């Protein structure tokens, strides 16, 4: 399974990069989301995956009595998900504003700050 997940991560990165290379601003954001998810998956995978043993200590004990999934990557990813949501929502609103003002979501038409003289 790890092998397939590694490939899955690669696919996410590739698709994300491809989307980021498009001229449309919306595609850029979708690409950003994909790479973000790819990174989360990568961290998750590299922390080694464990099936069916969440890092939660059982009711009856003070410490783990059997194997458990690594909690550190999970904590990292949780933070990453939340932060990337902040980024995404801001970017989405920014695109909306930009579209309202310049009536395009084509990056090439936005890359001058001033009117050409």
């Amino acid at each position, binding site marked *: 399974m790890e092998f397939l997940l590694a490939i899955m991560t690669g696919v996410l990165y590739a698709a994300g990069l491809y989307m980021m290379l498009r001229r449309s601003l*919306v595609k850029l954001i979708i690409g950003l989301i994909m790479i973000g998810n790819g990174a989360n998956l990568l961290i998750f995978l590299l922390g080694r995956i464990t099936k069916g043993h969440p890092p939660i200590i059982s009711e009856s004990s003070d410490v783990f009595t059997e194997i458990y999934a690594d909690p550190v990557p999970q904590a990292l990813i949780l933070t990453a998900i939340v932060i990337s949501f902040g980024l995404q929502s801001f970017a989405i609103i920014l695109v909306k504003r930009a579209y309202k003002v310049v009536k395009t979501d084509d990056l090439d038409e936005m890359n001058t700050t001033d009117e050409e003289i």
Partner: protein
Amino acid sequence: MLIAILIGFVFALFLAFAGKFFKGKLSILISLIPLGLFIYFLQYIPNIASNQIVTESQQWIPSFGVNLDFRLDGLAMLFSLMITGIGTLVFAYTSSYLKGHVYLDRFYAYLLVFMASMLGLVLSDNIISLFIFWELTSISSFFLIGFNNTNPDSRRSAQTALAVTGIGGLLFLAGALILGSIAGTYQISEMIPLSEMIAGNAHYVLAVALIFGAAFTKSAQFPFHFWLPGAMKAPTPVSTYLHSATMVKAGIYLLFRLTPVLGGQEFWNTTLLIVGAVTMFYAAFHTLFRTDLKGILAYSTIAALGILTFLIGLGTHEALLAAGMFILVHALYKATLFLMTGAIDQGTKTRDVTVLSGLRKVMLPIAIAGILAAISNAGIPPSVGFLGKDLIYESTLNFNHSAIFLTGLAVATNVLIAYAGYVTGVKPFIGKLPTGMEHVDYPPLLIWLPPIILGVLGFVFGMFPSLVQESLIKPILTSVGRDPSQVHLKIWHGFTPILGLSVLTISLGLLVYFLWKPTKSKEDFIERFEKFSPKHILESLAVLFEKASDLWTRIFQNGYLRNYISVIIVFLVGLVSLTLLENTTYRIDYSSFSRLTIYEVVTLAIMIMSIGFAVFTKSRLAAVAATGVMGYSICLFFVFYSAPDLAMTQFTIDTLTVILFVLVLYKLPKYLKLSDYKTRVKDTVISIAFGGLITILALEVLAQPVNEEISNYYAENAYILAHGKNVVNVILVDFRGTDTMVEISVLAIAAIGVFGLLKLRLKSSERKQK
């Protein structure tokens, strides 16, 4: 001495800030600064005459061996007196010449900085501090040459001068550092005893070549001479100051100063001899084809600098004496000629030598100054020029080989220089006054007095050479390590071959003057060869350089985000793959991987499909929905692999993102097909390479052992220390609580931004601007 040098900088700073309040009044008072310095240096004359060297040392950066060591010896004395003496006259002259100019205060500030840097240059004993002052003269002369900053030609000339002398300055730094590391000291006076060791070093030739580069660019030697005629765009006081006594002599000074350290070697002498000879003849020849007074003077200045380089190249006792003398002679007559030109220019509004004549009737004192300078320039006795020329011929005649050839070259050059002197100093004043010039204003005192003083001095020193012999000329020889006891300057040597050569020079010069008339057509004729001149070649190089950098910018800094990303990714993939190829053994241990289940395979398939759909769909909304599906699939993976908290977070966030996306973007039009097939193929290749690299990296890391120390610590202490049983939550809110708090504030900032953007209403005026 430190104060003497710094006072110029201090006053320049003062003028730059407070100069406006004087509005150009009292400007004559500023000439008190160079005058005071002149007197200050004069008081050391007795010390210098009795071979006492005045030194002063100030620690600056002792760890690098860079100190402000000042050393006033014969050579430094000659230059200091010229800088401050001619400086005084130029300062006074300027107060009348540029009277009422808006930027007069600024002009004086530049002039003061220049003077102070020049003084620092000739007084520095430390070659690094010498370099710093050297660069300061380049920079301040840039401002002086480009002073008429509304004139594009003037700006261009200033840039050319800065480019040429600036490159020279860099060469100097390199040469100075090499020299310093060979000698183990940056003190020039300490290098003199080591000269043999330095000459034997493998890097001797390199150091000398670099220093030559500096001296030749500064002193306008062929093929770097072209900045000097261009610099004539400067106001005349600047030309006077820079080209008679200071800036262009700095290179000569450097060569002179380093003669005892680096001189006496084949490479040193031959190079200087050839470059000097080419420069002096080339430039003297060019004077024949100029009609602008300042143009003629520019080329005769280059010729004079060529003579000086040539003499230093000869390197004999007599040649160095001749060079020392000629520096003084040239400064006196050339400054006079320049000041005279300025007066003519101001009076008649033209500098064209073909129309000027008979001006003695309207500006007699200027005529006197001009004729005195022309006489000294031609070397007619009893002027000091005669002494100078005598010494030059003496040194070429007594040189141990090719004496006849060298003397012939010197005579030819001097004939042409004499011609240039007659044309500039005599021609405008004799003959008939052209109509329209009868009412030329009589020049004010401050305009005619300075050239007269200098012109007369040229005769006083000529008639009474003992005035300068003990105090200036002999100490120069001492300062380059030669014995001056045999020096006896006098006008009359009896009937010698040298006298014959002098007579020949004077009369041939007159002959050329009478037979050859400078005309516009001759000037146009020589202009045709401009294509082959070093100036043209350098300018084409500069244009090429500009084009190259333009191309570079257009390729790498083109403002397209996707290009930046592509370049970064391509390099990343390339570099990492290179390392991977060399250092990796591809081993994938399938047995360590967990087994597949049907749920996972189905989820994977859904995910792949949703990604494909998001990438290829033409509908924005569908792409957003597909992104949502992809997020949910990842959410499922988190469920499968024991990460319930992640699954919940991912689920919430993904839902929110999709909702936000749909709310905001459903109004937007469909995707347009913006890129062509080729671009898409290229991007696909880059993307797949990048994704492949990530996969390989992930597999490589999976093959490494994992360190679980931190995880174990958290897991073991979660309940014992933090009293929580969900370890992920405990890490976030307890062990790393501060991080989480900062994260929340980041989210809050993003929320404020979103809120602000949503509420922002552009005013109608702002909207129109867009």
